[in-house]
Protein backbone atom coordinates (compact mmCIF):
# COMPACT_ATOMS: atom_id res chain seq x y z
CA UNK A 1 0.00 0.00 0.00
CA UNK A 2 2.71 2.49 0.69
CA UNK A 3 4.17 2.06 -2.84
CA UNK A 4 0.82 3.49 -3.89
CA UNK A 5 1.30 6.50 -1.60
CA UNK A 6 4.91 6.94 -2.67
CA UNK A 7 3.94 6.84 -6.34
CA UNK A 8 1.04 9.21 -5.74
CA UNK A 9 3.35 11.80 -4.20
CA UNK A 10 5.59 11.69 -7.27
CA UNK A 11 2.57 11.68 -9.61
CA UNK A 12 1.15 14.79 -7.96
CA UNK A 13 4.55 16.47 -7.88
CA UNK A 14 4.96 15.87 -11.62
CA UNK A 15 1.60 17.45 -12.38
CA UNK A 16 1.51 20.45 -10.11
CA UNK A 17 3.86 23.43 -10.38
CA UNK A 18 2.69 24.89 -7.07
CA UNK A 19 3.49 21.63 -5.32
CA UNK A 20 6.92 21.62 -7.00
CA UNK A 21 7.66 25.07 -5.61
CA UNK A 22 6.50 24.05 -2.15
CA UNK A 23 8.53 20.84 -2.38
CA UNK A 24 11.68 22.78 -3.25
CA UNK A 25 11.07 25.11 -0.31
CA UNK A 26 10.18 22.46 2.28
CA UNK A 27 10.29 18.86 1.07
CA UNK A 28 9.70 17.44 4.57
CA UNK A 29 6.39 19.28 4.80
CA UNK A 30 5.15 17.84 1.48
CA UNK A 31 6.34 14.32 2.28
CA UNK A 32 4.53 14.40 5.63
CA UNK A 33 1.21 14.55 3.75
CA UNK A 34 1.63 10.95 2.54
CA UNK A 35 1.63 7.68 4.48
CA UNK A 36 5.18 6.48 3.78
CA UNK A 37 7.62 4.12 5.43
CA UNK A 38 10.80 5.63 6.85
CA UNK A 39 12.78 4.12 3.97
CA UNK A 40 10.44 5.63 1.37
CA UNK A 41 10.52 9.04 3.03
CA UNK A 42 14.32 9.05 3.13
CA UNK A 43 14.55 7.88 -0.48
CA UNK A 44 12.53 10.92 -1.54
CA UNK A 45 14.35 13.41 0.63
CA UNK A 46 17.92 12.34 -0.17
CA UNK A 47 16.93 11.85 -3.13
CA UNK A 48 17.95 8.26 -3.80
CA UNK A 49 16.72 7.55 -7.34
CA UNK A 50 18.17 4.04 -7.26
CA UNK A 51 16.31 3.15 -4.08
CA UNK A 52 13.05 4.62 -5.41
CA UNK A 53 13.47 2.38 -8.44
CA UNK A 54 14.15 -0.65 -6.25
CA UNK A 55 11.09 0.18 -4.14
CA UNK A 56 9.03 -0.23 -7.30
CA UNK A 57 8.26 3.30 -8.48
CA UNK A 58 7.28 3.20 -12.14
CA UNK A 59 9.97 4.76 -14.35
CA UNK A 60 7.35 6.83 -16.15
CA UNK A 61 6.85 8.70 -12.88
CA UNK A 62 10.40 8.43 -11.60
CA UNK A 63 12.12 9.89 -14.68
CA UNK A 64 10.29 13.20 -14.17
CA UNK A 65 11.24 13.34 -10.50
CA UNK A 66 14.86 12.75 -11.54
CA UNK A 67 14.59 15.60 -14.06
CA UNK A 68 13.07 17.80 -11.33
CA UNK A 69 16.11 17.02 -9.16
CA UNK A 70 18.36 18.17 -12.02
CA UNK A 71 19.59 14.67 -12.86
CA UNK A 72 20.57 14.23 -16.49
CA UNK A 73 19.21 11.26 -18.51
CA UNK A 74 22.28 9.01 -18.59
CA UNK A 75 22.94 9.76 -14.94
CA UNK A 76 19.29 8.82 -14.19
CA UNK A 77 19.77 5.41 -15.84
CA UNK A 78 23.10 4.89 -14.05
CA UNK A 79 21.56 5.69 -10.67
CA UNK A 80 18.95 2.97 -11.18
CA UNK A 81 21.69 0.46 -12.02
CA UNK A 82 23.62 1.58 -8.94
CA UNK A 83 20.45 1.25 -6.89
CA UNK A 84 20.07 -2.38 -7.88
CA UNK A 85 23.75 -3.00 -7.12
CA UNK A 86 23.38 -1.47 -3.69
CA UNK A 87 19.84 -2.43 -2.64
CA UNK A 88 19.20 -5.59 -4.65
CA UNK A 89 16.51 -6.33 -7.24
CA UNK A 90 13.28 -4.35 -7.66
CA UNK A 91 10.92 -5.33 -4.85
CA UNK A 92 7.50 -4.43 -6.24
CA UNK A 93 5.69 -3.08 -9.26
CA UNK A 94 6.17 -4.10 -12.87
CA UNK A 95 9.60 -2.62 -13.50
CA UNK A 96 12.00 -5.40 -12.64
CA UNK A 97 15.35 -5.11 -14.40
CA UNK A 98 16.09 -7.55 -17.22
CA UNK A 99 19.69 -6.71 -18.09
CA UNK A 100 22.84 -6.81 -15.99
CA UNK A 101 23.82 -3.89 -13.79
CA UNK A 102 26.95 -3.26 -15.83
CA UNK A 103 25.25 -3.20 -19.21
CA UNK A 104 24.63 0.18 -20.82
CA UNK A 105 22.16 -0.69 -23.50
CA UNK A 106 21.34 2.62 -25.03
CA UNK A 107 24.92 3.74 -24.81
CA UNK A 108 23.56 6.11 -22.17
Amino acid at each position, binding site marked *: MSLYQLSKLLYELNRDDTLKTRFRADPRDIVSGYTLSEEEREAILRPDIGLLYVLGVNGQILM*HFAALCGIEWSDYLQRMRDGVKQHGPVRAGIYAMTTSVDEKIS*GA
Partner: protein
Amino acid sequence: MSLVFSGVCSHAPGITGRAARAPADQKDALYAVFDDMRARLHAARPDAVIVIAAEHFANFFMNNMPAYALGMSESYEGPIEDPEWLAIPKRKARGDLSLSQRLISEVQQTVDVAFCEEWRFDHGIMVPLHFLDPHNELIVIPANINCQGPPLTPLHRAWAFGEALRRAADAVPERIALVGTGGISHWPATPDSGRINEAWDRDFLDRWSRGDKDAMLAYTDTETYAEGGQGGFEIRTFIAAAAAAGGKGTVHHYQPIPIFAVGCTIGTLEIV
Protein backbone atom coordinates in the same frame (compact mmCIF):
# COMPACT_ATOMS: atom_id res chain seq x y z
CA MET B 1 -18.85 11.40 -42.39
CA SER B 2 -16.33 8.63 -42.03
CA LEU B 3 -12.93 7.55 -40.92
CA VAL B 4 -10.59 9.05 -43.52
CA PHE B 5 -7.18 8.07 -42.14
CA SER B 6 -5.69 5.55 -39.74
CA GLY B 7 -2.02 5.35 -38.90
CA VAL B 8 0.43 4.52 -36.14
CA CYS B 9 3.67 5.99 -34.88
CA SER B 10 6.12 5.92 -31.99
CA HIS B 11 6.02 8.62 -29.32
CA ALA B 12 9.12 8.09 -27.19
CA PRO B 13 10.24 11.36 -25.57
CA GLY B 14 13.82 10.72 -26.71
CA ILE B 15 12.74 11.23 -30.34
CA THR B 16 12.60 14.96 -29.67
CA GLY B 17 14.27 15.34 -26.28
CA ARG B 18 17.45 13.42 -27.10
CA ALA B 19 17.45 14.05 -30.86
CA ALA B 20 21.04 15.30 -30.90
CA ARG B 21 22.32 12.10 -29.31
CA ALA B 22 21.10 9.73 -32.03
CA PRO B 23 23.10 8.82 -35.14
CA ALA B 24 22.21 11.72 -37.46
CA ASP B 25 21.33 9.52 -40.43
CA GLN B 26 18.89 7.44 -38.33
CA LYS B 27 17.30 10.52 -36.84
CA ASP B 28 16.99 12.22 -40.23
CA ALA B 29 15.45 9.15 -41.84
CA LEU B 30 12.85 8.91 -39.07
CA TYR B 31 12.03 12.61 -39.24
CA ALA B 32 11.62 12.37 -43.03
CA VAL B 33 9.08 9.58 -42.72
CA PHE B 34 7.23 11.57 -40.05
CA ASP B 35 7.06 14.34 -42.69
CA ASP B 36 5.56 11.84 -45.15
CA MET B 37 3.02 10.75 -42.58
CA ARG B 38 2.06 14.37 -41.96
CA ALA B 39 1.50 14.83 -45.70
CA ARG B 40 -0.66 11.71 -45.87
CA LEU B 41 -2.68 12.77 -42.83
CA HIS B 42 -3.33 16.29 -44.12
CA ALA B 43 -4.11 15.00 -47.61
CA ALA B 44 -7.04 13.15 -46.05
CA ARG B 45 -8.45 16.60 -45.04
CA PRO B 46 -9.58 15.55 -41.57
CA ASP B 47 -11.88 17.79 -39.54
CA ALA B 48 -10.44 16.21 -36.40
CA VAL B 49 -7.83 13.66 -35.45
CA ILE B 50 -8.32 11.14 -32.66
CA VAL B 51 -4.96 10.30 -31.09
CA ILE B 52 -5.09 6.95 -29.30
CA ALA B 53 -2.37 7.24 -26.74
CA ALA B 54 -1.04 5.16 -23.88
CA GLU B 55 -0.33 7.99 -21.51
CA HIS B 56 2.14 7.74 -18.68
CA PHE B 57 0.55 8.90 -15.42
CA ALA B 58 0.06 12.47 -16.60
CA ASN B 59 -3.73 12.43 -16.19
CA PHE B 60 -4.60 8.95 -15.02
CA PHE B 61 -3.38 7.31 -11.85
CA MET B 62 -4.30 4.22 -9.86
CA ASN B 63 -6.80 6.18 -7.77
CA ASN B 64 -9.12 5.95 -10.78
CA MET B 65 -7.53 4.20 -13.73
CA PRO B 66 -9.85 3.90 -16.71
CA ALA B 67 -9.21 1.19 -19.26
CA TYR B 68 -10.38 3.56 -22.02
CA ALA B 69 -10.82 7.32 -21.96
CA LEU B 70 -11.76 10.07 -24.39
CA GLY B 71 -11.29 13.81 -24.04
CA MET B 72 -14.34 16.06 -23.98
CA SER B 73 -13.06 19.63 -23.96
CA GLU B 74 -12.72 22.66 -26.23
CA SER B 75 -8.96 22.70 -25.75
CA TYR B 76 -6.06 20.79 -24.28
CA GLU B 77 -2.65 21.89 -23.08
CA GLY B 78 0.69 20.21 -23.34
CA PRO B 79 3.31 19.05 -22.87
CA ILE B 80 2.90 18.38 -19.17
CA GLU B 81 6.63 17.66 -19.07
CA ASP B 82 9.31 20.33 -18.93
CA PRO B 83 9.30 21.69 -22.53
CA GLU B 84 13.10 21.81 -22.51
CA TRP B 85 13.40 18.22 -21.37
CA LEU B 86 11.07 17.15 -24.18
CA ALA B 87 12.27 19.83 -26.65
CA ILE B 88 8.67 20.60 -27.58
CA PRO B 89 7.21 24.03 -26.76
CA LYS B 90 3.96 24.37 -24.87
CA ARG B 91 0.81 24.70 -26.95
CA LYS B 92 -2.92 24.86 -26.49
CA ALA B 93 -4.41 22.37 -28.92
CA ARG B 94 -7.93 22.88 -30.18
CA GLY B 95 -10.57 20.34 -29.19
CA ASP B 96 -14.23 20.04 -30.18
CA LEU B 97 -16.61 19.54 -27.28
CA SER B 98 -19.66 18.71 -29.38
CA LEU B 99 -17.78 16.22 -31.54
CA SER B 100 -16.36 14.58 -28.42
CA GLN B 101 -19.81 14.23 -26.90
CA ARG B 102 -21.18 12.58 -30.03
CA LEU B 103 -18.24 10.22 -30.38
CA ILE B 104 -18.35 9.25 -26.70
CA SER B 105 -22.09 8.56 -26.76
CA GLU B 106 -21.64 6.21 -29.68
CA VAL B 107 -18.51 4.49 -28.29
CA GLN B 108 -20.36 3.93 -24.98
CA GLN B 109 -22.79 1.63 -26.74
CA THR B 110 -20.15 -1.09 -26.73
CA VAL B 111 -17.07 0.16 -24.87
CA ASP B 112 -17.22 1.70 -21.41
CA VAL B 113 -15.05 4.72 -22.02
CA ALA B 114 -14.36 7.32 -19.33
CA PHE B 115 -14.80 10.93 -20.43
CA CYS B 116 -12.49 13.76 -19.47
CA GLU B 117 -13.39 17.44 -19.47
CA GLU B 118 -9.73 18.23 -19.00
CA TRP B 119 -6.61 16.46 -20.19
CA ARG B 120 -3.01 17.58 -20.29
CA PHE B 121 -1.03 15.99 -23.10
CA ASP B 122 2.17 14.21 -22.22
CA HIS B 123 4.87 13.10 -24.68
CA GLY B 124 2.59 10.25 -25.76
CA ILE B 125 0.46 12.76 -27.66
CA MET B 126 2.85 15.73 -27.95
CA VAL B 127 5.58 13.88 -29.86
CA PRO B 128 3.13 12.75 -32.58
CA LEU B 129 1.53 16.23 -32.73
CA HIS B 130 4.93 17.90 -32.94
CA PHE B 131 5.55 16.07 -36.22
CA LEU B 132 2.02 15.67 -37.57
CA ASP B 133 0.64 19.08 -36.63
CA PRO B 134 3.63 21.42 -36.29
CA HIS B 135 1.52 24.57 -36.74
CA ASN B 136 -1.13 23.54 -34.20
CA GLU B 137 -3.89 23.59 -36.80
CA LEU B 138 -5.73 20.33 -36.24
CA ILE B 139 -8.65 19.67 -33.95
CA VAL B 140 -7.52 16.91 -31.62
CA ILE B 141 -9.61 14.39 -29.68
CA PRO B 142 -7.37 12.55 -27.21
CA ALA B 143 -8.08 8.92 -26.48
CA ASN B 144 -6.30 6.66 -24.05
CA ILE B 145 -5.83 2.99 -23.39
CA ASN B 146 -4.36 2.07 -20.02
CA CYS B 147 -1.10 0.31 -20.89
CA GLN B 148 0.70 1.26 -17.67
CA GLY B 149 -0.98 0.13 -14.47
CA PRO B 150 -2.20 -3.46 -14.15
CA PRO B 151 -4.70 -5.05 -14.27
CA LEU B 152 -4.54 -4.12 -17.95
CA THR B 153 -7.45 -4.29 -20.35
CA PRO B 154 -7.44 -7.47 -22.50
CA LEU B 155 -6.29 -7.14 -26.12
CA HIS B 156 -9.70 -8.13 -27.46
CA ARG B 157 -11.20 -5.09 -25.73
CA ALA B 158 -8.59 -2.85 -27.41
CA TRP B 159 -9.88 -4.29 -30.68
CA ALA B 160 -13.44 -3.54 -29.58
CA PHE B 161 -12.38 0.03 -28.75
CA GLY B 162 -11.00 0.48 -32.27
CA GLU B 163 -14.21 -0.90 -33.76
CA ALA B 164 -16.28 1.41 -31.57
CA LEU B 165 -14.24 4.44 -32.65
CA ARG B 166 -14.74 3.45 -36.28
CA ARG B 167 -18.49 3.13 -35.79
CA ALA B 168 -18.55 6.50 -34.03
CA ALA B 169 -16.42 8.17 -36.71
CA ASP B 170 -18.69 6.83 -39.43
CA ALA B 171 -21.75 8.15 -37.57
CA VAL B 172 -20.71 11.83 -37.34
CA PRO B 173 -20.72 14.30 -40.27
CA GLU B 174 -17.07 15.24 -39.71
CA ARG B 175 -14.11 13.66 -41.48
CA ILE B 176 -12.17 11.81 -38.78
CA ALA B 177 -8.52 10.77 -38.79
CA LEU B 178 -7.02 8.43 -36.24
CA VAL B 179 -3.46 7.95 -35.04
CA GLY B 180 -2.51 5.15 -32.67
CA THR B 181 0.74 5.72 -30.87
CA GLY B 182 2.83 3.40 -28.74
CA GLY B 183 5.99 1.45 -28.58
CA ILE B 184 6.32 -2.10 -29.70
CA SER B 185 9.00 -3.74 -27.56
CA HIS B 186 10.74 -1.32 -25.23
CA TRP B 187 11.80 -0.82 -21.63
CA PRO B 188 11.39 2.94 -21.29
CA ALA B 189 12.58 4.89 -18.27
CA THR B 190 14.22 1.82 -16.70
CA PRO B 191 17.87 0.75 -16.56
CA ASP B 192 16.99 -1.40 -19.57
CA SER B 193 16.14 1.70 -21.58
CA GLY B 194 17.47 1.14 -25.09
CA ARG B 195 16.80 -2.57 -25.14
CA ILE B 196 14.75 -3.38 -28.25
CA ASN B 197 13.61 -6.83 -29.41
CA GLU B 198 13.72 -6.33 -33.16
CA ALA B 199 12.63 -9.89 -34.01
CA TRP B 200 9.57 -9.63 -31.78
CA ASP B 201 8.76 -6.20 -33.21
CA ARG B 202 9.01 -7.42 -36.79
CA ASP B 203 6.80 -10.40 -36.01
CA PHE B 204 4.18 -8.10 -34.43
CA LEU B 205 4.35 -5.71 -37.40
CA ASP B 206 3.89 -8.64 -39.75
CA ARG B 207 0.67 -9.66 -37.98
CA TRP B 208 -0.40 -6.01 -37.94
CA SER B 209 0.35 -5.49 -41.64
CA ARG B 210 -1.69 -8.53 -42.61
CA GLY B 211 -4.61 -7.20 -40.55
CA ASP B 212 -4.57 -10.58 -38.84
CA LYS B 213 -6.87 -9.99 -35.87
CA ASP B 214 -6.45 -13.43 -34.31
CA ALA B 215 -2.67 -13.25 -34.50
CA MET B 216 -2.64 -9.74 -33.02
CA LEU B 217 -4.87 -10.80 -30.12
CA ALA B 218 -2.93 -14.00 -29.43
CA TYR B 219 -0.36 -12.41 -27.08
CA THR B 220 -0.64 -12.87 -23.34
CA ASP B 221 0.61 -10.05 -21.12
CA THR B 222 3.16 -12.44 -19.62
CA GLU B 223 4.63 -13.15 -23.07
CA THR B 224 4.55 -9.49 -24.02
CA TYR B 225 6.32 -8.50 -20.82
CA ALA B 226 8.99 -11.15 -21.31
CA GLU B 227 9.63 -10.39 -24.97
CA GLY B 228 8.57 -6.77 -25.31
CA GLY B 229 8.99 -5.27 -21.85
CA GLN B 230 6.45 -3.16 -20.02
CA GLY B 231 6.53 -0.78 -23.00
CA GLY B 232 5.27 -3.64 -25.14
CA PHE B 233 1.89 -3.37 -23.43
CA GLU B 234 1.35 -0.35 -25.69
CA ILE B 235 0.68 -2.67 -28.66
CA ARG B 236 -2.93 -2.03 -27.65
CA THR B 237 -2.84 1.31 -29.44
CA PHE B 238 -1.65 -0.29 -32.69
CA ILE B 239 -4.32 -2.98 -32.34
CA ALA B 240 -7.07 -0.39 -31.85
CA ALA B 241 -5.89 1.56 -34.92
CA ALA B 242 -5.98 -1.67 -36.96
CA ALA B 243 -9.48 -2.51 -35.73
CA ALA B 244 -10.71 0.98 -36.63
CA ALA B 245 -9.25 0.76 -40.14
CA GLY B 246 -10.24 -2.83 -40.85
CA GLY B 247 -7.71 -3.20 -43.69
CA LYS B 248 -4.11 -4.14 -44.20
CA GLY B 249 -1.27 -2.03 -42.85
CA THR B 250 1.89 -0.70 -44.44
CA VAL B 251 4.99 -0.16 -42.34
CA HIS B 252 6.72 2.91 -43.79
CA HIS B 253 9.53 2.90 -41.26
CA TYR B 254 11.04 0.64 -38.63
CA GLN B 255 14.41 1.41 -37.08
CA PRO B 256 15.64 0.57 -33.59
CA ILE B 257 17.32 3.67 -32.11
CA PRO B 258 18.53 2.79 -28.58
CA ILE B 259 18.99 6.37 -27.36
CA PHE B 260 15.33 6.94 -28.33
CA ALA B 261 14.57 3.76 -26.34
CA VAL B 262 12.32 2.21 -29.00
CA GLY B 263 12.17 0.69 -32.45
CA CYS B 264 10.92 3.82 -34.23
CA THR B 265 7.88 2.88 -36.26
CA ILE B 266 5.56 4.64 -38.68
CA GLY B 267 2.71 2.94 -40.51
CA THR B 268 -0.62 3.57 -42.16
CA LEU B 269 -3.66 1.38 -42.62
CA GLU B 270 -6.13 0.82 -45.38
CA ILE B 271 -9.66 1.88 -44.41
CA VAL B 272 -12.08 -0.84 -45.48
